[in-house]
């Protein structure tokens, strides 16, 4: 067991740190949530800068350890995370890279890496959230097109996206997990209607997407017809793998700020509160070590993250909510001031135990796939 990085990995870190130091001061502040076009421009400009510096593909091609170092250093430097490019870089891109044809890879991957095209995720439906296999959006073959009708929901970045990674049902007679197909749908196609949804944080971070006889070329299908579930599992293994690693670094920074605030405002003398902060220090320290453990394991077994990601996500999402609850105890009345970033982040953190598979679904995954307990049905 070793926690030191190789010379090559340390050289990568040093080069990245050096580049970030020069690149970050030139970056304007990120526009507020809600101003999506401005956010898109901002996030895409940052992605373009990463591309020009040779760091754009770190989420795909580099070793898991390099990805970890990238997340650690960008977070430490306060650089923006993937932002509006989230789905393209972490879901659609890796999926197309793994499952797409050479032509599909050539068409879609470079614009994702350059920040030229934004993707959104059309997985969830009003009746198919965490129970993804029950999705009902229909796609009927008509010549060299699929004709798609249905509705998607909780779709982040839908208003600014160029493409949607869309799951559709192509064989309603097949068992639930079969008969699903993965399509790349252009968001400007006739019949696509986007209606923003307001979150409990007050901002419009996601949307409903209505699909009324939208024609999607068969050439946009990634993987075989009716094999979309398997393709999707490839996508989700990336989502639950190391996607949150950088945020642990952010949480540790946030926790240190919180301790500083508590020392300044006198709440540090509250023993129970101080002990809560101490426990969170243990939590986030261990979550970082667990990330390193999972990455080392993935590296040893060939790169695709395993179910260890579900273990991480369960604890991380709860620890992060506990962090903001503790912050509220430290800040007192200030925690009710919506103009403070703390308060907005606290509201956002309520989604962590729901998004990307609720904690309840993650526990089922852990129990059935890791511990081998019998299926519920």
């Amino acid at each position, binding site marked *: 067991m070793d*926690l030191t990085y190789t010379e090559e990995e340390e050289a990568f870190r040093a080069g990245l740190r050096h580049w970030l130091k020069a690149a970050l001061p030139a970056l304007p502040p990120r526009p507020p949530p809600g101003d999506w076009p401005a956010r898109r421009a901002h996030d895409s400009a940052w992605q373009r800068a990463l591309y020009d510096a040779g760091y754009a593909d770190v989420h795909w091609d580099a070793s898991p350890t390099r990805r970890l170092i990238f997340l650690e250093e960008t977070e430490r430097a306060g650089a923006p995370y993937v932002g509006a490019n989230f789905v393209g870089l972490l879901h659609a891109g890796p999926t197309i890279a793994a499952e797409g044809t050479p032509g599909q890879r050539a068409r879609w991957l470079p614009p994702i890496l350059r920040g030229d095209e934004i993707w959104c995720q059309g997985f969830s439906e009003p009746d198919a959230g965490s129970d993804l296999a029950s999705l009902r959006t229909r796609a009927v073959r008509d010549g060299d097109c699929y004709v798609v009708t249905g509705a998607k929901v909780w779709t982040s970045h839908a208003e600014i996206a160029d493409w949607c990674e869309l799951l559709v049902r192509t064989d309603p007679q097949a068992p639930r997990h079969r008969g699903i197909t993965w399509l790349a749908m252009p968001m400007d196609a006739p019949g696509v209607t986007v209606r923003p949804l307001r979150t409990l944080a007050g901002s419009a971070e996601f949307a409903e997407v209505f699909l009324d006889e939208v024609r999607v070329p068969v050439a946009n299908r990634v993987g075989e017809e009716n094999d979309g579930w398997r393709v999707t599992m490839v996508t989700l293994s990336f989502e639950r793998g190391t996607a949150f690693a950088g945020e642990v670094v952010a949480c540790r920074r946030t926790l240190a700020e919180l301790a500083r605030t508590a020392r300044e405002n006198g709440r540090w003398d509250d023993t129970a509160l*101080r002990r809560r902060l*101490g426990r969170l220090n243990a939590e986030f320290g261990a979550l970082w070590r667990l990330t390193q453990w999972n990455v*080392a394991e993935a590296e040893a077994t060939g790169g695709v993250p395993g179910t260890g990601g579900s273990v991480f996500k*369960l604890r991380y999402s709860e620890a992060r909510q506990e962090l903001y609850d503790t912050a509220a105890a430290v800040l007192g009345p200030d925690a009710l001031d919506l103009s403070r970033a703390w308060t907005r982040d606290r509201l956002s953190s309520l989604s962590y135990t729901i998004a990307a598979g609720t904690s309840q679904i993650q526990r089922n995954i852990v129990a059935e796939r890791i511990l081998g307990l019998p299926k519920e049905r």
Partner: protein
Amino acid sequence: MRFQPTEDQRALRRGVRELLEARCGRDVLRARGARIDRALWRELGRAGFFSLRLPEAEGGAGLGLPEAALVFEEAGRVLLPGPLVATHLAAGAVPGAADGTAVVTRADGGLVPWLEEADVVLGDASGAVPVTSVDPLTPLHRVPSGPPGEPEPAAVLLTAAEQLGSAGRTLATAVRYAKEREQFGRPIGAFQAVKHLCAGMLVRTELARAAVYAAAVTADPVEIAGAKLLADEAAVQGARDCLQVHGGMGFTWEAEVHLHLKRAWVRAELGLPAARAEEALAAAL
């Protein structure tokens, strides 16, 4: 970065597991009660349990804290009784500790385990009074003198490793039972409520594992405090959840579960209890 056990470390763990599984069956432990099995203690000595970290020139294996953590995890898994940590730490300093011919315990204020069975008592145990120990396999004394001293980080880490082993065992026990035991015509592990108890046990165990192994590699006192805190939680809550999965059977003396819970409570109190660990972790912020 290879934060995974090496092939040598895996082999060491396998060897220790085979030795302990063969010698520490539940019936053996119960028959022995609160007495040290001297023959087993010497066998542990011969196997290098206590001398593991001594240099080869002094008759040890020249290994480090990570290897010791893996070995103590196995000890925790089978509820191996005795002042294992104190004797391990005394190897090289107290004659007979390294080869298992002496049983060494330590008094640093607060509770002293195995006081009457020990050949050597380090620290001040004057005025110690016996406690009716909650753990039938760990006799305890209480020392009236002042507050407990600052525990050695290695002792805290190895106690945490024992807790990790206990958490792993209660998880495996609960999962096995949930697959076998049928109610309402199905294995109880098919019910989401039971599944979620087991999943919670795994999450706590895996987080504790990452914390304990990393702390063994870095030997950083703050990281060790965090590892102890999370391993205590994994062991205590794991045993409680295992008891719950076993239902009425779990509440009986016959089931092994209560022994894990009681030992986990004792270990949580020894070394670095939660309040002190949390204060140490807060002070480092």
